[in-house]
C-alpha cells in the first residue's frame, strides 16, 4: 500500500485534562492537530442544569428510577445524558467495577471534584520511602515542580501556603473561607494532631485569565455555566481553536492506532457514532489521552504484524497495574453546637472547601499497619437535602422541628485511599464481547487489597475520633467502601519508566516500542497517591506535549 501523506502533525485522542492540555500546547506551538472525541460537544447554556432547583426537575433531581440504580450518584438528573454506561467494559468473575463514562468534549473535567494538590517526592519516591514496595516514579518533584506552577497559573487554584513537605505548596489564588463547621472540626483535629486545611481547590475565588470568579451557587459537579473552575472546554479548547490549527472531530470512537510497515504509527481508525462509518485519519504522531483504562484498551486493540500483543506492549505490561482510589463514607454525625442556628451557605463549591491531607506514616514509613497513606475530605452543614432524616425518629410536628433544628449540624467524611499496584488488578481485552461499534471491550480484573482495607478501617476510626474531639456525636459510617471504579481516578495500565522491559512508556510518555505514539493521561502514572489525579495529569501532559513539540521540530519522532 502506498504511504499516505500525513494530514496532520498530531492526532490527539481525548479532550479531557491530558488531551486538552496536549491540544492547547501543540496548537500554540504551531502544529496542526486533529482531536478525536468519542462524544458530543456540550452547550453550557443548554446542557448545564446547575442552577435549577430540585422542583424544576421532573424527578426532583433524583433521576428516572427506571434508569438509575440509586438516588445519589455522580450520574443524576442534572447530568442526565452526559454520562453513559453502555457496555464499554466487562468484569472478570469476582470483580465489581462501577464506572460511568463521560464522553462529552472535555470529559470528566466538566464535572470534576476540583481538588488539585501537587504530588511530592513522598509520592514519586514512594518505593524508596516505604522500603521497596513497587518502584519509584522515573521523575522527581524538582523536575515536575515548574510544570505544576505553570498549570496552576493556567487554571487557577485557590489554597494557602501550608508548609508541609508531604503536600508541596503551589501558586495559589486566595482560599475559600472556612465555615462554622470547619472551625469546629478544625479544633477537634488540632487536639488530635490531624491536619485540617483549606483544600487545593481549582475554583476561581477571583477573576483569573479572563474567566469570571465563582458565584458560589454550590452545584459545581453538575457543570459550571460561567466556567469558574477549570475544564478544558472553558479554558483550553478556545485557546487552541484561536490558533486555527485545531480540527475537533466529535462522536469519533477510536478503534485502534494504525501502523506502517516500519512499525511506526501512521494514523488512527475511528467509528463515527452518527454514520456508523469507519474513518481513517493520518498524522506524524499520535497522543493517546482517552483516560487510563480507555487508553489501554486502544493500545491493546492496536494489533498488527509488528505489534502482535498490542501497540507498545512488547513488555506485556499494557493494561497491568490498574490502581484506583478507594472511596467511602468513613463517618457521619452532627455538631450539637450548631443545633437550631440559622442556615448558612455551607454547600458552596459542592461542600468541597477543606481536606485532611495524609498524616499517616510521615515521621517514619512504618508507623502504621499499612504502607503509604490516605486523605479525608470533610463535608457538611446546610446542604440541599436533609439526608440525616434517617437519624431522627418519629413523625409529625416534632419530626418537622427536628429536621429544621439539625439542618446546620450534619457532617460527613469520605476518604481517598490509594490502592497498591497489584499483579491481580489489571485490564485486558474481552475475547468475546464487542461494543455497539464492533470494537472489543476491556475486561476489568480488580479487587481491593489488604493494604487499602487496613487504611479504610483506620480512616473510620480516625473520623469517629475527629467528630468526638470536635464535640460532635457520631451517627455511623459506611459499612463497605464504595464499589471500585466509583472515584473515576484510575491510574496505571501504561506505566512510565526507563526500562522498556518493565514499562510501556518512557518518562516523557513516549511508548518505548513506537517512537511517534505518546500517552498523556493518568495511565502513565505508577499508581494512585493520597492526592487526586487531575493536576498531575495536566502537569505531566504539558511536559509530554512540549517534549513532542521539540521532537517534531527536530524531526526526531
Amino acid at each position, binding site marked *: 500500500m502506498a504511504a499516505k501523506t500525513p494530514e496532520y502533525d498530531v492526532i490527539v485522542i481525548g479532550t479531557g485534562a491530558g488531551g486538552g492540555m496536549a491540544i492547547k500546547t501543540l496548537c500554540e506551538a504551531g502544529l496542526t492537530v486533529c482531536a478525536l472525541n468519542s462524544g458530543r460537544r456540550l452547550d453550557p447554556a443548554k446542557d448545564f442544569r446547575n*442552577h435549577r432547583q*430540585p422542583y424544576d426537575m421532573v424527578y426532583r433531581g433524583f433521576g*428516572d428510577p427506571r434508569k438509575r440504580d440509586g438516588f445519589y450518584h455522580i450520574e443524576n438528573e442534572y447530568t442526565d445524558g452526559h454520562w453513559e454506561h453502555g457496555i464499554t467494559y466487562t468484569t472478570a468473575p469476582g470483580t465489581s467495577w462501577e464506572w460511568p463514562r463521560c464522553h462529552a468534549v472535555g470529559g470528566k473535567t466538566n464535572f470534576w471534584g476540583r481538588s488539585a494538590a501537587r504530588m511530592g517526592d513522598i509520592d514519586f519516591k514512594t518505593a524508596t520511602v516505604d522500603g521497596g514496595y513497587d518502584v519509584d516514579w522515573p521523575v522527581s518533584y524538582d523536575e515536575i515542580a515548574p510544570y505544576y506552577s505553570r498549570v496552576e497559573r493556567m487554571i487557577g487554584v485557590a489554597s494557602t501556603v501550608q508548609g508541609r513537605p508531604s503536600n508541596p505548596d503551589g501558586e495559589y489564588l486566595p482560599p475559600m*473561607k472556612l465555615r462554622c463547621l470547619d472551625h469546629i472540626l478544625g479544633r477537634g483535629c488540632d487536639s488530635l494532631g490531624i491536619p485540617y486545611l483549606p483544600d487545593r481547590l481549582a475554583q476561581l475565588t477571583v477573576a483569573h485569565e479572563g474567566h469570571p470568579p465563582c458565584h*458560589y451557587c454550590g452545584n459545581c459537579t453538575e457543570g459550571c455555566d460561567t466556567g469558574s473552575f477549570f475544564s478544558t472546554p472553558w479554558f483550553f479548547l478556545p485557546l487552541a481553536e484561536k490558533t486555527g490549527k485545531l480540527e475537533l472531530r466529535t462522536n469519533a470512537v477510536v478503534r485502534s492506532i494504525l501502523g506502517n510497515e516500519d512499525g511506526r504509527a501512521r494514523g488512527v481508525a475511528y467509528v463515527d457514532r452518527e454514520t456508523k462509518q469507519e474513518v481513517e485519519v493520518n498524522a506524524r504522531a499520535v497522543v493517546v489521552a482517552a483516560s487510563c483504562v480507555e487508553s489501554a484498551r486502544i493500545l491493546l486493540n492496536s494489533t498488527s504484524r509488528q505489534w502482535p500483543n498490542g501497540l507498545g506492549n512488547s513488555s506485556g505490561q499494557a493494561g497491568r497495574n490498574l490502581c484506583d482510589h478507594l472511596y467511602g463514607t468513613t463517618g457521619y454525625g452532627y455538631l450539637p453546637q450548631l443545633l437550631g442556628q440559622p442556615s448558612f451557605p455551607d454547600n*458552596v463549591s459542592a461542600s468541597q472547601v477543606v481536606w485532611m491531607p495524609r498524616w499517616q506514616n510521615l515521621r517514619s514509613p512504618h508507623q502504621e499497619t499499612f504502607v503509604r497513606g490516605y486523605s479525608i475530605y470533610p463535608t457538611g452543614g*446546610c446542604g440541599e437535602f436533609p439526608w440525616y432524616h434517617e437519624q431522627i425518629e418519629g413523625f409529625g410536628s416534632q419530626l418537622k422541628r427536628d429536621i429544621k433544628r439539625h439542618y446546620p449540624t450534619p457532617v460527613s467524611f469520605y476518604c481517598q485511599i490509594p490502592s497498591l499496584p497489584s499483579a491481580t488488578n489489571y485490564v485486558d481485552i474481552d475475547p468475546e464481547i464487542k461494543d455497539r461499534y464492533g470494537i472489543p471491550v476491556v475486561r476489568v480484573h480488580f479487587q481491593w487489597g489488604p493494604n487499602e482495607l487496613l487504611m479504610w478501617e483506620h480512616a473510620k476510626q480516625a473520623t469517629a475520633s475527629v467528630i468526638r474531639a470536635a464535640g460532635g456525636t457520631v451517627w455511623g459510617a459506611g459499612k463497605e467502601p464504595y464499589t471500585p471504579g466509583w472515584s473515576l481516578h484510575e491510574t496505571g495500565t501504561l506505566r512510565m519508566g526507563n526500562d522498556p522491559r518493565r514499562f510501556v512508556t518512557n518518562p516523557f510518555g513516549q511508548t518505548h516500542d513506537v517512537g511517534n505514539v505518546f500517552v498523556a493521561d493518568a495511565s502513565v502514572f505508577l499508581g494512585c497517591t493520597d492526592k487526586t489525579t487531575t493536576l498531575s495529569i495536566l502537569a505531566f501532559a504539558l511536559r509530554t506535549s512540549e517534549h513532542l513539540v521539540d521532537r517534531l521540530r527536530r524531526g526526531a519522532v
Partner: protein
Amino acid sequence: MAGQGLERREVLRILALAAGASTHPGFSRWSFACGHGGSGLVQMKPPRYTPRFFSADEYATVERLARLIIPSDGSPGAHEAGVSEFIDFIVSSDPGVQYRFRYGLTWLDAHAGKLHGGAFRTLDEPAQNDLLGRLAYRDRYRDGEDEGRAFFKLIREYTIMGFYTSKIGLEQLDYPGLRIYAESPGCPHPDDPEHRRLPAPKP
C-alpha cells in the same frame, strides 16, 4: 402476642383481590404543586389530581399518611407541597418499589381493620396516630408488626423526599444554596471558633 401480626398469606390474598377489582387511571393531569418564579413553566394545579399508580382509596391513604408525617401545623406541610402527588408519580415511574407500596398499604388497612374495625383512612386521628406511633417509635414497637414498620419507613422516606425537594420544603429549611454570592461566604463567628457562645436559637 402471637397472632397480632398479619399473616403474609392473608395480605397476599387481599392484594390479589384488590388487583382484580381496581383499575388504574391512566396518565392524566398532574402537578407537583410547587410554583417557582422565573422558570417560565405554566403554574396550574388541577382542581383534582388523578393518580397514575395508586387506586383512589390507596391514594387517599397516601395523602393522609403524608399529612400525618409532615403536618400543616402553622406552617405548610406535605399537603400544601403536593407530596402525595410526588409519591404517586415517583412510584408510578419505579416498578421496583410498587409492590412494596401496595403490600404496605394493604397491610396497614388490614391491620387497622383488626385493631380498630376500619380501613386506616376511615379512622379518627387519635387512632391513626396510635397505629403509626407503634410503627415509628422504638419504645412502642410491637411483635409481629415488622412489615408495618418497614412500610412506615418507606412512606416516611418518600414523604420527606417529596417535601424537602419542594419549594415549600426548601423554604422551611431556608436552603441557602443556588444563590449568587459575591465572595466566598465565611463563618460569621470569627471570635468564637469553637462555637460555644452562639446566640440561643429561636424556638
